[in-house]
């Protein structure tokens, strides 16, 4: 009797370990997570429009149908990136996710306070390697540090009414994410 009870308790304890192990390992092994899903439509270091969700088809579950969205799947191993997003008429936001889909930073048109959201994305190491003078002259330059070499940038703009969706999509179609050294200012 006691032997059975001990085995039951032992089993439950071991079960707890199994449970915690699976919870922690799952995000690392999931091949249907958002990053993997988007990898099939998004080449590296390019902004790609994400199709509007429909009942039949959506790039991800729980997408907000009132938003036009675009994705830049980034890889910083070749150097920092520059991101520019024209601001649409209502509300535009840019959210940053690690390779494991953890949101680590977000900015919107109001906090950017300009006609376009402009920032440089780099790792902490790349930030540390920036020449001193570049850091100083660019006092108004927004630098975002990515905790991982790869990840996702989600660009989203609200169409307050369905009739405004086409205009909203057109507004963020001008978004760019490019290697910092390849970037040529338009003006």
């Amino acid at each position, binding site marked *: 009797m006691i032997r059975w009870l001990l*085995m*039951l308790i032992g*089993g*439950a*304890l*071991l*079960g*707890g*370990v*199994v*449970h915690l*192990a*699976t*919870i*922690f390992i*799952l*995000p690392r092994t*999931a091949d*249907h*997570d*958002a990053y*993997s*899903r988007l990898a099939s439509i998004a080449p590296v270091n390019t902004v790609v429009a994400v199709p509007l*969700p*429909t*009942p*039949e088809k*959506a790039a*991800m*579950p*729980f*997408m*907000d149908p*009132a*938003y036009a969205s675009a994705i830049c799947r980034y890889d910083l191993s070749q150097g920092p990136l520059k991101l520019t997003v024209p601001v649409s008429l*209502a*509300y535009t*936001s840019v*959210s*940053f*996710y690690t390779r*494991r*889909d*953890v*949101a*680590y*930073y*977000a*900015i*919107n048109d*109001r*906090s950017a306070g300009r006609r376009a959201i402009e920032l440089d994305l780099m790792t902490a190491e790349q930030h540390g390697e920036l020449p001193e003078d570049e850091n100083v002259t660019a006092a108004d330059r927004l630098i975002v540090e990515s*905790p991982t070499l790869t990840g*996702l940038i989600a660009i*989203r703009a*609200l*169409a*307050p*009414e*369905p009739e405004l969706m086409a205009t909203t999509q057109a507004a963020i179609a001008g978004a760019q994410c490019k290697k910092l050294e390849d970037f040529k200012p338009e003006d």
Partner: protein
Amino acid sequence: MLLVAAIVGLGGTYISLTRGQGFSTLSIGPWTAWPKTGTTDIDPYAQAAIARLGRLPIALGDGVEFLARADDKGRLLDGRCDVELTGVTPAARYWTLTLYGANGELVANSVKRYGFTSQEILRRADGSFQITIAPRASPGNWLPTGGVERYMLALRFYDTSIGISTKEGREVPMPTLSVRSCP
């Protein structure tokens, strides 16, 4: 012993991933939000649930998402019933309301309406509003259910001060959800 371990361990994982989305919830009436899920402080349970669903959480700097699967009385939302969403919302630059099926997919309907934004809604003089969530057309703000058995509602607030330290109270007046009639 190993059998018990497998049942407890994997069963526990399955239940926690299908039922919940992690700890540190903000529950107001039938609405629940997980503000920490949009930050690097996300707990491992929420992260596992998100990886399994294959979605991207809303970053906290962007907005906060509230989900409701049941009405004010705790009855699961049924697309064959007429449900009224009534009241006011907490302060935010914009909000959107979206109806999803059991797996986070949009629900097909004849008018291709999947939700509302704060700008399209018809309001009363005092700023409050009512949305009728029903299978058949209804005057005013009508959100079609497509007649599905189970659905959930997502109310998302963008550019808002709702955050990790927000508590239930006067600053977050969430609309009520009540069943008006059921066939």
